[in-house]
């Protein structure tokens, strides 16, 4: 059975149906790139994947055109952080090594 990279995604919903929502000017600079702007009356639903290397959640933008970073060793998406794109150092391996002593 074929498996797509997007299979096994998580799920995020931000419901501002009855809320003033969040405007771009409210968002702290450091969070600006990663905060979904969900305005008053809007509902935001997205698949969420994780970077195999650092574990950070990545909200999948269905309108993204440039390719997503991918690690062939992990067979998993990785985030756009240059450090995660440099070497394969998966979080799961770190956890396994720590448990194994």
């Amino acid at each position: 059975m074929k498996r797509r990279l997007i299979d096994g995604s998580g799920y995020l919903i931000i419901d501002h149906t009855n809320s003033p929502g969040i405007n771009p000017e409210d968002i702290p600079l450091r969070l600006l790139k990663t905060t979904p702007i969900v305005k008053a009356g809007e509902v935001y639903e997205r698949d969420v994947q994780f970077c195999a290397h650092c574990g950070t959640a990545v909200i999948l933008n269905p309108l993204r055109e440039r390719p997503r970073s991918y690690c062939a060793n992990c067979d998993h998406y990785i985030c756009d952080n240059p450090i995660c794109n440099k070497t394969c150092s998966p979080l799961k391996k770190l956890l396994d090594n720590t448990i194994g002593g």
Partner: protein
Amino acid sequence: MARWSAPVPSWTPVAVADTTAMTDGGHQTIQGGSSTQRGEIREVYLGGQAGASSPTFMVLGRTSTVGATLTALRLAAMDPSTAALAAPPVNYAASTTKPQRSATLGILLNLSFNAFGGVVRWVNGPDEIISYLGNTASLGELSLNAFTGGTPGLLGSNIVFETL
């Protein structure tokens, strides 16, 4: 393995910078119950309870300083047949040594919303993990707290996690 529900029915997050001591009652943190215990977060739910517009920049992430001498909050097994753990994980918001959000691993999940009527729900995918390991820095805790900025408002939160 067993799933556990860690609710905090009503609280107001207190925004803090990275590597700064959090405020009692202003965060929700899960700490592993022993040096080898591992747990995975399955779901995070935030329901806004504020009475006025409150852009609230909640993040879930790791702490570079873990809490010590914890005051445990509610923690309930979701299945009635779940066996009691010898060393259960701790859901807490108050401690003598305060946790501090890691500058590098402090934001694994951005759950920003408006606590005036807003609702956020994140559900983990079956292949994905946000996990804690042990009970020491920097992998032994996962903290739900407010990033600096906005005007954090009253909310209720629930974290569902699974001990492995």
